[in-house]
C-alpha cells in the first residue's frame, strides 16, 4: 500500500444537500487525530440552492491552500462531475450518485476510477434523504482508508440527542456507504496517509478566529451591519454575548455601525466593527473623523471582489487603496492584513493594541478566502498578545482641573501621542471634535495650530513599523534570484510555489506583508535591494500593492506583478508559473 503526504477530497451538489456538514464531520475528527486540514467552500451568491462544493485537503504538514488536484470527488449531481471531474488526479476516484444516471463518458480512457453508486437509494433505505451525506461520509472514509471507529463514535455523538433509532440508522447509512465502495472499487489499490501524532488543534473559519481575537483583545463591544463575507463575526459575537458579557448592536447601516462603535471607543471600550468593501466605503467619513479626533477605532474589512457589489462570494484583495486612502483630508491611519487564519486571531489583538497606542483608526483586512474557509490551527494561546492600552490615563493620576480649563487631550507632545482620558474621569474633561482644534479640543483655526496638529497626527505613525512585525519573513537567502511579496491568503500558494522552486535550485525569498500603512520602507529595503527580481502577488487587476512599492521605496526598479482577479484564490502552480517567467 502506498503512503502519501496529503489527500484532497471534494464533494459537490446543490446547496442544502448537507455537503458541508459531511465535510465538517470528517474534518472535526481528522483534526483531533492530528492531521492538518484546509477546507474550501465554494458557493453561488444565492439564498438557497445553486451549485456548491466543499473541498478538504488532509495533510501531515501544516498547509494553507486547498491544493489543486483532487484525489476523491463525491458528486451528488451531474453538474459536479462535469465541472470538477477534470480536477481529479491520475489514479483518483469519482463517485456519483447512481440516482442521477451519471454520464462519465468524458473520462473514457482517463486514468481515473468512475463509480456510480446508490447514494440516495442507500439513504432512503434507512428512511431519509437527509442521510445522503452520511452515506457519502462512509464512502469517503473507505476511499481514504481511515479507521472507521472515530467516525462511528462521532456519528453516535452527533445524533445522540435525537434517539437511539436515529443513531442506528445513521450508523447503518455510514456502514452501507463504506461497504459499497469496498465492494465496487474492484482491484484498485487504496492509498493511505500515515497516522500523525495527535495535536491540540482547532478547526475554524477565519471569521471565527477574528471574533475570538477580538474577545481575547478584551473587546466586548461591537456594532455591525450584515454583509457577505463578514457577517459570521457579528453572528459569533451575538451567539456568545451572554458568555462573555458583550454588547453587540446590529445597526441600521454601516455608517451607524462605525459611529456606534466609535462612540463606544470614545467612552473607553475596545469597540470595533466588521464589514466588507461596500461597508468600508460607507465608513469613510466616520474614519476621517476618527483620525481627526484621534479615536482608537478598529474596523475589520473582510475583502471581497469589487468594485461595487462585485462578486460578493469571491475573493479579491482590491481594497488596499480604499483602506489607506478612502477617508478625506490628511488622514492618519494604520492598515494591517493578516497572512493566515491563525493571524486573524493574533494580529487582530495587536491591531487593537496599535489603535490604542497610536490613537488612530486601524483597518484590519483579511480576505474572503481567509474569512470563509476553515483551517486547522494550533489551539489559540489566550495570553500570547498582552493588552496594551497606550497612553490611556488612570483617573487617580490626573492633576486637578479648574474650570474653564480642559485636560490637554491633544497636547502637542514630541512623539505626537497625547495622554488620553475618557468620559467619567473626574479631571479628564476635554472636547472632542472633527473640527481642527487646540490642545484641549477647542475649535481652533489659526494656521499655526492646524499645521501643528496635522504634523502631530502624522508624526505619531512614524514608529509603527518599529513596534510591529511588518511582514512575515520567509527569506532564507542573503542574496536571492527573486523576492516574492504577497498579501493576505496568497501566502499558502506562494509558500508551496517557493518550496518547489527552491527544490529546483532557485534562490527565492518570500515576504508576506502585514503592515500596509504606514508603509514599512525601512524594514523592506534590505530584502528589496538583495533581490535580482521582485514579484508581487495580489488579487486585483490594478496592482495596488505594487504601486505602493513604487511610491514608497526609494529605489526605482522593475516590479513584476502576479495578478489574479477571476474571483478564485491563487494556486501554487499559478504563482510558480508567474515567478518562472521572470527567473
Amino acid at each position, binding site marked *: 500500500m502506498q503512503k502519501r503526504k496529503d489527500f484532497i477530497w471534494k464533494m459537490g451538489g446543490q446547496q442544502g444537500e448537507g455537503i458541508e456538514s459531511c465535510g465538517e464531520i470528517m474534518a472535526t475528527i481528522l483534526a483531533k487525530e492530528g492531521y492538518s486540514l484546509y477546507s474550501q467552500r465554494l458557493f453561488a451568491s444565492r439564498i438557497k440552492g445553486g451549485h456548491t462544493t466543499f473541498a478538504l485537503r488532509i495533510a501531515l504538514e501544516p498547509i494553507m491552500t486547498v491544493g489543486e488536484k483532487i484525489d476523491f470527488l463525491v458528486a451528488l449531481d451531474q453538474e459536479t462531475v462535469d465541472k470538477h471531474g477534470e480536477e481529479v488526479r491520475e489514479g483518483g476516484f469519482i463517485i456519483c450518485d447512481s440516482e442521477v444516471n451519471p454520464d462519465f463518458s468524458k473520462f473514457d480512457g482517463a486514468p481515473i476510477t468512475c463509480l456510480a453508486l446508490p447514494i440516495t437509494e442507500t439513504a432512503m433505505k434507512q428512511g431519509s434523504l437527509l442521510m445522503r451525506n452520511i452515506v457519502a461520509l462512509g464512502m469517503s472514509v473507505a476511499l481514504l482508508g481511515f479507521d472507521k471507529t472515530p467516525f462511528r463514535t462521532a456519528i453516535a455523538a452527533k445524533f445522540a440527542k435525537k434517539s437511539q433509532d436515529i443513531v442506528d440508522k445513521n450508523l447503518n447509512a455510514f456502514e452501507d456507504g463504506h461497504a459499497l465502495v469496498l465492494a465496487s472499487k474492484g482491484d484498485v489499490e487504496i492509498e493511505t496517509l500515515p497516522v500523525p501524532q495527535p495535536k491540540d488543534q482547532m478547526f475554524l473559519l477565519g471569521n471565527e478566529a477574528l471574533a475570538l481575537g477580538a474577545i481575547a483583545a478584551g473587546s466586548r463591544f461591537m456594532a455591525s451591519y450584515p454583509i457577505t463575507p463578514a457577517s459570521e463575526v457579528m453572528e459569533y459575537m451575538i451567539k456568545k454575548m451572554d458568555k462573555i*458579557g458583550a454588547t453587540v448592536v446590529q445597526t441600521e447601516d454601516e455608517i451607524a455601525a462605525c459611529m456606534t462603535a466609535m462612540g463606544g471607543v470614545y467612552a473607553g*471600550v475596545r469597540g470595533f466593527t466588521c464589514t466588507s468593501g461596500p461597508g468600508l466605503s460607507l465608513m469613510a467619513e466616520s474614519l476621517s473623523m476618527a483620525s481627526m479626533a484621534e479615536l482608537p477605532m478598529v474596523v475589520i474589512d473582510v475583502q471581497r471582489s469589487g468594485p461595487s457589489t462585485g462578486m460578493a462570494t469571491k475573493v479579491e484583495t482590491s481594497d488596499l487603496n480604499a483602506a489607506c486612502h478612502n477617508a478625506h483630508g490628511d488622514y492618519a491611519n494604520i492598515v494591517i492584513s493578516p497572512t493566515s487564519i491563525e493571524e486573524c486571531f493574533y494580529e487582530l489583538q495587536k491591531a487593537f493594541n496599535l489603535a490604542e497606542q497610536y490613537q488612530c483608526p486601524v483597518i484590519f483586512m483579511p480576505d474572503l478566502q481567509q474569512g470563509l474557509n476553515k483551517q486547522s490551527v494550533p489551539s489559540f494561546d489566550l495570553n500570547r498578545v498582552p493588552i496594551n492600552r497606550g497612553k490611556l490615563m488612570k483617573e487617580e493620576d490626573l492633576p486637578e482641573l479648574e*474650570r474653564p480649563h480642559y485636560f490637554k487631550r491633544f497636547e502637542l507632545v514630541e512623539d505626537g501621542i497625547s495622554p488620553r482620558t*475618557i468620559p467619567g474621569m473626574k479631571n479628564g474633561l476635554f472636547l472632542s471634535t472633527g473640527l481642527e482644534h487646540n490642545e484641549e479640543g477647542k475649535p481652533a483655526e489659526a494656521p499655526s495650530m492646524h499645521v501643528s496638529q496635522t504634523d502631530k497626527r502624522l508624526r505619531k505613525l512614524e514608529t509603527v513599523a518599529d513596534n510591529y512585525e511588518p511582514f512575515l519573513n520567509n527569506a532564507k537567502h542573503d542574496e536571492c534570484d527573486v523576492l516574492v511579496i504577497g498579501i493576505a491568503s496568497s501566502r499558502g500558494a506562494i509558500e508551496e510555489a517557493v518550496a518547489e522552486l527552491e527544490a529546483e535550485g532557485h534562490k527565492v525569498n518570500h515576504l508576506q506583508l502585514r503592515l500596509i500603512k504606514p508603509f514599512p520602507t525601512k524594514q523592506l529595503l534590505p530584502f528589496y535591494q538583495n533581490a535580482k527580481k521582485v514579484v508581487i502577488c495580489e488579487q486585483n487587476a490594478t496592482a495596488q500593492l505594487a504601486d505602493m512599492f513604487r511610491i514608497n521605496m526609494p529605489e526605482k526598479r522593475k516590479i513584476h506583478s502576479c495578478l489574479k482577479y477571476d474571483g478564485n484564490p491563487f494556486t501554487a502552480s499559478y504563482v510558480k508559473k508567474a515567478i518562472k517567467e521572470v527567473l
Partner: protein
Amino acid sequence: MTTANDYRNDIRPNWCPGCGHYGVQAAIADAVAALDISPENLAVISGIGCSSRIGGYFYTYGAHTTHGRALPYAQGVKLANQDLNVVCAGGDGDAFAIGMGHTIHAFKRNVNITYIVMDNHVYGLTKGQTSPRSDIGFVTKTSPHGSFESPLPICETAIASGATFVAQSYMVNRAELVELIKQGMQHEGFSFINVFSPCVTYNKRNSYDWFKEHLTSLSTVEGYDPTNRVQALQTLGAHEGLVTGLIYRDDTKPSFEKAMAAVNGGPHPRALVHDVVKPNADVFADLCKEFK
C-alpha cells in the same frame, strides 16, 4: 450640588444674537444642574450644523461628530458606559434629513439617552436652505419658488416608530423646557424632545411671534393623556404638530440596555469601560473547545 454655572466654559457660541439656541443651551444646563449631574458624568454629543456646535459649549465631555451621525455615536457612548448621562443635540437638518435613518432607528431601539433637536425649519450654517421641516411655500436659496415638499411630521413619526418619550417645546417657555429635559433624562429609554428654536437670520417666516401665535400647549387640551397613543396622534393631527408639552410616553417598554441585559447576562456597563481585560481563561477555553 451642581449648578448651571458649573457647566459654563469660556467658548463664545457662534450663534447670531437673538438665536433660539441660547435658550436651549441654558435650559439644558438648568436641567442637568437640577438633576445634580456633575460635569464628568455627562456627555453631550452633537452632529454638524449651527445648533450642533452645542457639544462644545458646555464644560463637560462634549463630542462634536459628523453630520447626521450624532445619534449612533451617542448610543455607542451610552452602551459602553451606562453610568454616563448622555444628551444628544442638534438641528432639524442634522436630525431629519441626513440623519433621519438613524433617528428612526433610535426611536425604535430605545437606548437610554436624551435627544434634543433645535428645530428652526431652516439650514443656518450653510446660510439659508430649505429643511425637511420647512413649511410649504417657504422661500430659501434652494427653494426660490417656495418649498413644495411636505414638512416632515416628526412627532407623529416618532410615535409611529416606537419612541417611548416624545415631547415638544418652545425655547421661550424655559420652565417647561427644563422640566421636559429633566423628565426625558429620567425616563428609562430613549427620550426625544423637539424644541422650536427660531432662526432670526434665515427664517423670517417662523419667527418668535409666529411660534407664539401658532403653538398650543397640551396643558390646555382637556383630558389629555400622554400615555394614550391614539389621542397623542389625533391631537398632533388636529394641530398640525404645533403643540407643546409631553406628547407621549410609554414606560412599559424596556430600554435597549435592559432588554440586552436580559440576554447577555448584564448589565456590565462599568466593567466594559474599566475592564478591558483578557476574558476569563476557563470561558475562553470553553469557546475554543467548540472548534476542537
